[in-house]
């Protein structure tokens, strides 16, 4: 059958503007509306997870002052906080939110290639969120098994939420995976097939490379979570013994026999480790574009950045068992996985160097998005270095299950991606809404968040060295943890409350600016990429007016010598801006 490239299919697409409120904002097939729906839902559940973390911190910092936090509730809060933050907030926000918004705009298309599937993807995601939140209201409450849901404990009696919460969690995950698959097929196909004329792969902004690779990782890693969820569901509902060993439950021999808990851990982490990069790679991409734009400089080592993203994506499937050094698996495995873990640090470090070298001698504008982006470089280096400690078996064993681990992964995949989320939200806010945010408020928000999170997580490293175990409801009589640790814990809790309250600034800013912010021009940052070159701001349905853009150059023509302005948009034809003096490294 004849193949018709998307760009050549007539422009009638743009004429079918949805008319009614319902088709425009509710059952919308427009990628921009779906992106906002995804983003709004993700931030909403993220706020619930933030609230849960404050309750946890209250218990640790000021034990037994809040009457309704009992051990069961504490574990439920730990579990839901982790699961929501990793999957329902970060994965959904980066790929469903930013992916949906930026992929068609940056590739120069009118929409995703399968808009209906895209809409279904959001509604399945919303369904998964509703199922997840419903588990708060079933008898026994949500599961308290920890976000890793390790068998056998996750489905055994005595674990909070074993009555119904765990089943809802498994169903919710399965629905989420279906939603992600529908969205992911869209992003991958759109990026591979529907780029506008002139948009070669190597002219794509790094945001798209990050989102693309993360989507591919997600498509191949989520099946591992799906398989473990289905098998765990069988063990739970039908009483099979895939993962469940013979054991005593509440003093009685359970009916399970012979299953392998380690198998669950392997399956879970075969998903779980790529998941770290599903969150990190879009962040890497978005932050690269924010840094290049606000440093007025081309990204240092564009090709290396692309290859590093791909290399990290490939390697991320070969490191999963570094989460399992203390699980009792074969020690030779540990040696192998420690090696691959150190290898994956190479492309990651390369990216960090390139961000720093992009800043070097740049014409840096220290506005809010840039502050968040530079803050990300700090927290990411910090979390990356502690990762090198934990990646080595011999150092991991004494540190496993202490607060050092908590500090590490919050720094590297909690704080760092969230700083990028803020950088990106502030950066693209003028395009999404057509208004500027309040710069002063944004800067205050940054400093409160950045310094505040350091006040939370830096002391945790020290607590970890002391041996303070994670996941404990209260310390009890632990001689090796000195009493002064309690003072530190109280301070961490106060810092956490401070950071949580500081986020109010962000919400005031974005909602206030929606109506009262200064009107934004189409390209307020002087950026080169296509989404800033749309005829309307915010872009209308169909994005590009009557004709699709043509792309004549790469995404990073900033401060090209001899030009009248310090950026050349990607859709600017060549004649006017001959690259006569444009040599590598000259600027």
């Amino acid at each position, binding site marked *: 059958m004849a193949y018709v*490239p998307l760009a050549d299919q007539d422009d009638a697409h743009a004429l079918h503007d949805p008319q009614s409120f319902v088709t425009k904002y509710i059952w919308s097939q427009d990628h921009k509306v779906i992106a906002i729906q995804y983003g709004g839902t993700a931030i909403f559940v993220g706020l619930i997870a933030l609230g849960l973390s404050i309750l946890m911190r209250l218990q640790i910092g000021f034990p037994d002052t809040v009457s309704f936090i009992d051990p069961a509730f504490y574990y439920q809060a730990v579990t839901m906080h982790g699961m929501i933050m990793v999957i329902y907030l970060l994965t959904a926000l980066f790929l469903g939110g930013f992916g949906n918004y930026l992929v068609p705009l940056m590739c120069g298309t009118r929409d995703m290639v399968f808009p209906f599937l895209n809409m279904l993807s959001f509604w399945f995601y919303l369904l998964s969120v509703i199922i997840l939140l419903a588990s708060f209201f079933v008898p026994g409450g949500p599961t308290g098994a920890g976000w890793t849901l390790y068998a056998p404990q996750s489905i055994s009696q005595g674990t909070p939420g074993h009555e119904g919460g765990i089943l809802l969690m498994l169903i919710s995950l399965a629905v989420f995976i279906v939603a992600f698959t529908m969205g992911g*097929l869209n992003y*991958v196909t759109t990026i591979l097939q*529907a780029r506008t004329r002139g948009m070669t792969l190597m002219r794509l902004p790094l945001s798209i490379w990050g989102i693309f690779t993360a989507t591919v990782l997600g498509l*191949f890693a989520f099946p591992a979570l799906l398989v473990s969820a289905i098998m765990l569901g069988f063990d739970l509902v*039908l009483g099979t013994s895939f993962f469940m060993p013979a054991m005593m439950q509440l003093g009685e021999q359970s009916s399970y026999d012979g299953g392998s808990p380690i198998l669950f851990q392997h399956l879970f982490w075969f998903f779980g480790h790529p998941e770290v990069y599903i969150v990190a790679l879009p962040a890497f991409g978005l932050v690269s574009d924010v840094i290049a734009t606000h440093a007025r400089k081309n990204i240092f080592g564009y090709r290396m950045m692309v290859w590093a993203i791909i290399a990290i994506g490939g390697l991320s499937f070969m490191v999963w068992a570094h989460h399992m050094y203390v699980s009792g698996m074969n020690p030779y495995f540990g040696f192998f996985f420690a090696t691959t873990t150190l290898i994956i640090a190479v492309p990651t470090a390369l990216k960090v160097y390139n961000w720093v070298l992009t800043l070097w001698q740049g014409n840096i504008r220290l506005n809010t998005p840039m502050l968040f982006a530079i803050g990300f470089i700090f927290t990411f280096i910090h979390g990356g270095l502690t990762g090198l400690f934990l990646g080595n078996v011999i150092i991991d064993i004494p540190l496993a299950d202490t607060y050092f681990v908590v500090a590490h992964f919050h720094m590297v995949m909690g704080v760092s991606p969230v700083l990028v989320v803020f950088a990106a939200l502030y950066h693209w806010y003028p395009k999404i809404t057509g208004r500027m945010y309040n710069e002063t408020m944004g800067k205050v928000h940054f400093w409160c968040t950045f310094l505040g999170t350091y006040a939370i997580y830096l002391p945790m490293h020290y607590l970890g060295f002391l041996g303070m175990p994670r996941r404990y409801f209260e310390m009890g009589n632990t001689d090796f943890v000195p009493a002064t640790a309690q003072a530190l814990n109280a301070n961490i809790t106060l810092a956490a409350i401070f950071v949580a309250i500081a986020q109010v600034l962000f919400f005031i800013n974005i909602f206030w600016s929606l109506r009262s912010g200064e009107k934004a021009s189409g390209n307020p940052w002087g950026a080169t990429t296509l989404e800033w070159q749309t005829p309307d701001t915010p872009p209308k349905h169909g994005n590009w007016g009557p004709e699709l853009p043509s792309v004549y150059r790469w995404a990073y023509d900033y401060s090209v010598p001899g030009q009248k302005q310090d950026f050349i948009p990607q859709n600017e034809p*060549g004649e006017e801006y001959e690259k006569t003096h444009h040599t590598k490294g000259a600027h």
Partner: protein
Amino acid sequence: MSLLNDVTNKPWDEVGLPDGIEPKPVFSVSDERVALTVFLIIVSVVFSLLLVSYYIRMQLGDWVPMLLPDQLLLNTGALVLGSIFMQLAVAASRREAVVGLAKGAGLLFLLGGLFTIAFVAGQYQVWDQLAASGQGVRTNPSNSFFYLLTFVHVLHLLGGLWVWSRAEIRIAHGATSHDIQQSIRLCAIYWHFLLAIWVGLFVLMSYT
């Protein structure tokens, strides 16, 4: 390899439209075909992970191979027929797209789906019989895996049947075979793929 060239060229050196005024997709097939191919890879990952689990669980000592009921052969036959009719529908729709008839391809396509529904019903019957004869899901890990693998396989078939039913609705509303030629072809690919997976699973479970 052009893909390799694409990701190794130096984009900063070049201004203009390197591929002329035509947009250049990575693969010169339809978007739906690309999405289906990616989806088939995902499904392969799902079944590979199940097979790895199968292998690991087998080693744990309490494994007793399961005697599979003969009806599975009959079911397999239905699935094979489904695939054959799908392939015939593809050929017919190609011929008819030239000549302009719609009925033949539509009928073959319908049969392809119906035989698959027969397979699903047959699998349900097998579960029923096995459970009635004391071969429940908990009897042995090999039984558990039999139910698990057939269940996941049937789920994938149902997904295919959903797409198939949407194409059938379009045919009922008078779509010509030219219009749904692509749907028929993509369904056929998916049908063959799931048939191959089923045969693989069937052989594996018969001998272990």
